[in-house]
């Protein structure tokens, strides 16, 4: 259960923590758009530095981030092998009689890995600095325009916030049931898959049972207090944009514009700097 704390909200009082969740969600969307543009290694380098600064400001420990990324090494390896096998053009780097390794395969893999790492970093910054509940409020607000097409924004936000609320509860429950079954000699982390099946069943069934029971109880409790999803309601916590939100959003827009410019004028910048960006 050690990994479960990774990427969770960490209470702190930093500039990023204090920003409005809507600002942070919008900024994340902008940054994710940048990640998927063709901005070359130079672009990723600049973006990387910007994110390092954000990490520093948010006080996310690099160790936490590193552990999150480390868990994905297998996927990276898999990508690497697939790319090496499938990219068969460009310059030959290594010629093994039966099979050639091309530089484009390597570059392609590097790009995907860089993109993944950057995406993880961005979402980690968002989730460690924003309370899950604030995040749903922000999302609900940003989804308001969808109401025109009868999209049930409030219901979706309620579903998300209940789900978020119960994730830690279910994780605790999982740990408790695992321990209880381990006390009866069932061990999940050992043996062949065939031997593991009873152990897995002994975990899943009680987990579902209690999850259903909990949702039943919650539904009753909500109904008892007259919950009506379509009712008009006011908020206890009102989201408020401050000058730092406007400032941050402007900064992100400027940065995004810069990257858009970079990606459309790659050749020009390349000749200006005298380096091959796409490499």
């Amino acid at each position, binding site marked *: 259960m050690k990994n479960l704390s990774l990427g969770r909200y960490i209470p702190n009082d930093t500039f990023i923590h204090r920003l409005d969740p809507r600002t942070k969600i919008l900024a994340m969307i902008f940054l994710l758009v940048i990640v998927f543009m063709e901005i070359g290694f130079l672009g990723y380098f600049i973006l990387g530095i910007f994110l390092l600064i954000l990490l520093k400001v948010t006080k996310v420990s690099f160790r936490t981030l590193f552990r999150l990324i480390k868990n994905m090494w297998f996927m990276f390896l898999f990508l690497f092998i697939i790319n090496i096998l499938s990219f068969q053009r460009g310059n030959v780097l290594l010629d093994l009689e039966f099979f050639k390794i091309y530089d484009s395969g390597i570059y392609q893999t590097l790009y995907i890995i860089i993109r993944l790492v950057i995406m993880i970093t961005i979402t980690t910054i968002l989730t460690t600095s924003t309370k899950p509940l604030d995040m749903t409020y922000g999302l609900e607000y940003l989804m308001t325009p969808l109401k025109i097409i009868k999209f049930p924004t409030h219901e979706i936000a309620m579903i998300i916030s209940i789900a978020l609320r119960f994730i830690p509860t279910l994780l605790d429950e999982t740990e408790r049931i695992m321990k209880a079954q381990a006390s009866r000699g069932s061990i999940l*982390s050992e043996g062949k898959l065939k031997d593991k099946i009873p152990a897995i069943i002994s975990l899943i069934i*009680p987990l579902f049972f209690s999850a259903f029971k909990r949702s039943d109880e919650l539904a009753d409790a909500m109904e008892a207090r007259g919950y009506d999803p379509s009712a008009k309601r006011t908020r206890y916590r009102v989201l408020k944009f401050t000058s730092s939100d406007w400032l941050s959003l402007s900064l992100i827009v400027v940065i995004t514009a810069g990257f858009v410019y970079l990606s459309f004028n790659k050749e020009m910048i390349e000749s200006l700097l005298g380096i091959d960006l796409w490499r």
Partner: protein
Amino acid sequence: MPIKFENVSYTYLPNTVFKTEALKDVNCEIKEGSFTAIIGHTGSGKSTLVQHINALLLPTSGTVFVEDYKIFPNSKLKQIKKLRSKVGLVFQFPEYQLFEETCYKDIAFGPKNFGKTSEEIDVLVKDAAKLVGIDEELLSRSPFELSGGQRRRVAIAGILAMKPSVLILDEPTAGLDPRGAREMMDLFSRLNKQGITVILVTHDMDYVLRYSELVIVMSEGMLKAYDTPLNIFKNTKLCKELNLELPTVFSFANKLIEKGLDIDLGKVKDVKTLADEIALNKGGKQS
């Protein structure tokens, strides 16, 4: 099986901002065949402490000795798996761990995991069901059809079927009706008389006074006191400091002493023994 904690500390989620030092340098020895109660506020480390005894948790530092088993920070699962059949741990609300189609199969889960043959299992399951007072015809029913109290009995039978020589109970009577709770406590007391070491985590001081020989008091991860119930409840300073509730008969006896009756607190365990003491004072008969 004697149990010994030596400088045991445990930290949840070390090296993160969520880290909690749940145990701090705990030292104590629990004698074979004893009935020991563990009390303390919620979050004081009681559950963490008992989960070390069957190696569900390995100490962050220090060592736990259980018979010949040595549980230390780098213990390997292989070396300690057998230990789990000898130390039965009943979690809080154990009815949530039931999962088989029938109660029989659920009670058999533990013995099966420890490699018992089906003939052995049959005897173990029926014995355990009888101990907790579950009728044989209920054994073929699904545990999900039973009432809460019955489900708890089935879950406890699932632990007893492993024939543990140490039985750990983490708040076993929470949420039971008074009668069910008393029957449960009487069962544990009977098992203790048969030689099983019983360790009971509880908030109910009446049970502590009535059943336990020794009491471990936990506070903020530290072992605050380890003594007989009499000495613990007589220690006004400790009880004040930790906000411990006194057992009902004990405070009643205290009041009687204040009013001039001569009562031996050491003999007061429950209503009956208190009545005996009062009768002695008044020249009445002892039952």
